[in-house]
């Protein structure tokens, strides 16, 4: 019978079982690294460094995991905080205005040979909308869980998801059918 995340966390807490922690890493590394790749606009090296930092922080602070939310939600919060701290250190440009977004998919402006896919459209969203869309739409978190990860009000999450989705739909509509 496969152990649940809660069982594995208990083993880490009680016995300092690093094999159990390794299993947790194996289970969640893909989603955490995927989220960070999207947040960092596909900077793979940076995303993996932040992902390693995320799991190390999770191990050191595992006693603070209270089990009220899913383990993955708690991990996403650590990952997002790691990303934000890194962005502040690097003074990352985290926003983009509507005009640039429109110009990117205007066939008269963009390179007609350039293939605009969904991930490129995501990378053009402002950070707050991109984060909300990634967590709720791609990773399946509830609005409540996403609000905890991002440490923003529930209403703000809903607004950001709505706006992000609308922008993506407009962008994809301009590219035409698949």
């Amino acid at each position: 019978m496969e152990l649940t995340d809660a069982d594995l966390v208990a083993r880490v807490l009680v016995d300092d079982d690093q094999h159990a922690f390794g299993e947790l890493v194996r289970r969640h590394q893909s989603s955490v690294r995927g989220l960070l790749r999207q947040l960092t606009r596909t900077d793979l090296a940076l995303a993996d460094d932040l992902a390693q930092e995320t799991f190390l922080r999770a191990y050191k602070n595992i006693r603070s995991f209270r089990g009220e939310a899913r383990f993955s939600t708690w991990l996403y919060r650590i990952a997002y905080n790691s990303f934000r701290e890194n962005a502040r250190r690097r003074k990352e440009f985290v926003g983009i205005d509507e005009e640039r977004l429109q110009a990117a998919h205007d066939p008269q402006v963009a390179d007609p040979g350039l293939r605009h896919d969904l991930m490129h459209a995501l990378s053009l969203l402002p950070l707050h909308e991109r984060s909300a869309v990634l967590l709720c739409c791609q990773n399946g978190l509830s609005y409540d869980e996403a609000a905890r990860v991002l440490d923003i009000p529930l209403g703000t999450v809903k607004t950001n998801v709505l706006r992000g989705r609308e922008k993506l739909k407009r962008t994809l509509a301009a590219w035409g059918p698949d």
Partner: protein
Amino acid sequence: MDRRLREAAPHIDDNGFTARVLQQLPAPRHARRSLRGAILLGITLLASVLVYVISDGGRFLVVAMARLTTLPAFWLFALAFCSGILVMIAGVIAATAKASELQS
């Protein structure tokens, strides 16, 4: 839209990522506990040897045992009983502390 987003996010192979994370973890507590146990045992043995040498072959122990044997049976029984109670209380406290740790 959500389905498209999920499909556009492929599974990322581990490719040694987990191993790299585990390499950076601090040494497990049980390894540190074994070392602590070995150090405590070593110090205890050293202290015992020192006491034996300083006390002229543990003569004070012989004297203490001799005095114990002269005690009335009732007092011997009471001493053994109280020692047992003390050990039991210490065990209960340790078990309760461990249970609280597990529950939290």
